[in-house]
């Protein structure tokens, strides 16, 4: 079988739980060998999407293929080709790290010697060799997450699902998980990850689908998504509040567009269609008018701004709910 162009394809996936529609016609197409981020607020349907794609939940409607197999009709085959790292580190806390990996290896139907050898390889690769004999319950959050990743890599599956892989981790462990994910993708694995952290999607993902209320409301590369909100802006920070109005007028004339004033931050900003040229023009005009500038620069909107813009105020409320 030739490798399919898309590792994950979903068309019109639907899933209803009682009165709520968790998936309302979700479409996805993840090219093989890339990292794709599913970004959305709590309750948007991210976890349900992962559960359907990993055969844990049957969809009410629509179809999905993962690694070339239908998730309903070919569920057993899909299970041999995917790895899943869920929101909890799903490892046996009584058993040691090595015992966990050997057990999971056996349940993937490796022979006992192969399972032991694979466990040792993975312990080495995920820097757990030293802690291999200790119960996983004594591991730190980051170590447990690495063990979890190792367990999902036993068969080196072509498609790996990560459901909020860094939720609850400290910044250092988070960076470690990111490094591991990058290394896996270099090895050819396709990764689909859900996250609430825009930074995570920005750093890792080649493509992003922003989902809300069970369907995709925007998708594209992180840069393209940011561009959709508007391009770069020139931002000027002043020392003197009395100069704000003058600076806004000068800036507006220099870039040829309306400027916005944030009085509390002593900041004036305006769209900079011409990028560097607009910046140069702004500096020159402000200098000529004798306005004292504390800071000036080009800034691209953050994914946070894109996200809030796309999902609206209701999403902002929901973001307050802890995971």
């Amino acid at each position, binding site marked *: 079988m030739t490798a399919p162009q898309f590792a994950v394809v979903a068309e019109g996936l639907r899933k209803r*739980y009682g009165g709520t529609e968790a998936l309302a016609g979700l479409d996805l197409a993840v090219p093989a060998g890339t990292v794709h981020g599913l970004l959305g607020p709590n309750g948007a349907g991210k976890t349900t999407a992962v*559960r359907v794609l*990993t*055969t*844990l*939940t049957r969809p009410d409607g629509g179809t999905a293929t993962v690694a070339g197999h239908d998730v309903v009709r070919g569920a*057993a*085959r899909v*299970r*041999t080709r*995917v790895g*899943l790292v*869920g*929101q*909890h*580190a*799903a*490892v*046996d*806390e*009584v*058993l040691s790290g090595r*015992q966990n990996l050997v*057990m*999971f290896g*056996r*349940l*993937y*139907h*490796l022979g006992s010697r192969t399972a032991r050898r694979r466990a040792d390889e993975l312990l080495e690769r995920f820097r757990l060799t030293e802690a291999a004999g200790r*119960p996983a319950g004594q591991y730190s959050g980051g170590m447990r997450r690495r063990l979890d990743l190792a*367990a999902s890599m036993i*068969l080196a599956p072509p498609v790996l699902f990560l459901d909020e892989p860094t939720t609850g981790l400290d910044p250092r462990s988070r960076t470690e998980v990111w490094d591991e994910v990058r290394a896996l993708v270099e090895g050819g694995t396709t990764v689909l990850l859900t996250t609430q952290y825009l930074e995570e999607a920005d750093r890792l993902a080649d493509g992003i689908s922003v989902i809300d209320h069970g369907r995709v409301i925007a998708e594209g590369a992180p840069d393209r998504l940011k561009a959709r909100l508007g391009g770069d802006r020139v931002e000027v920070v002043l020392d003197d509040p009395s100069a704000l109005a003058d600076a806004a007028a000068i800036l507006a004339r220099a870039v040829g567009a309306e400027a916005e004033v944030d009085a509390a931050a002593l900041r004036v900003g305006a769209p900079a269609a011409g990028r560097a040229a607009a910046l140069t023009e702004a500096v020159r005009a402000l200098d000529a008018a004798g306005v004292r500038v504390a800071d000036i620069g080009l800034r691209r909107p953050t994914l946070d701004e894109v996200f809030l813009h796309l999902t609206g105020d209701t999403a902002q409320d929901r973001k307050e709910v802890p995971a």
Partner: protein
Amino acid sequence: MTLPETPVGRLRWAVADTRTLTGRALAHWARRPGEVAVGLLFPVMVVLMMGYLFGGQMDVPGGGGGYREFIMPGMFAMTMLFGIETTFAAVAGDAAKGVTDRFRAMPTSPPAIIAGRGAADLLHSVAALAVMAVCGLLVGWRAHEGAARALAGLGLLLLLRFALIWMGVYLGLVAKGPESVAAVQTLVWPIGFLSSALVVPDTMPGWLGAIAEWNPMSATVTACRELFGDPGPTGGSWAAQHSVLLAVLWPLVITAVFFPLAARRYRVMGR
């Protein structure tokens, strides 16, 4: 790895996975011997408490061996009943931690995941019965009717435990989390006490006594008293007279109800 295409191949996978998962439970015991010892000795403590603290005040029908010999078959059955807590806690813990979901997303044989739990719990119960039998022999309990009938009695006890496994698996999958084990621990006592395990149902108010006589626990306990030749109330209701039959039927009924429920719950877990 290639998936098995034939029923024989699938069965081979199921057997292999059941062994792996039974081994997992054995590895747990090896890592937590203290916890296992406390679990095994708990019913021994109950025997000593009941036998020596309450025993002096109890009149035992059917004469002979005294209260301690009367309660031993009851305590064997209680030990089987306590086992439901072990099953429940293990299943609910795996479900809450996402371990069950990991298994379900793997090419592991689905029946093996429940069967592995069952096999491990039955082994645990064999050990628990062995400890209790030694305890019984030390406090004066005997099986008077020969080895064959004694083994038949032990077989009925394990059959009851077998049925309770599926009830424990089902409740564990339905529960919100392993914390609910406290509820199971509490419920086990009235179910055990409302039977002929430790007292004679005749002495209860009429309607309560009737419930106690038809309790599946009573069927196994009364059948064991008969097979071991231990003292106990004679005659009585239809249920008491056909205890061996009921001690076989009840576990089969419980299994017929809870095994499909547990299997279905496992398939649609998390909906």
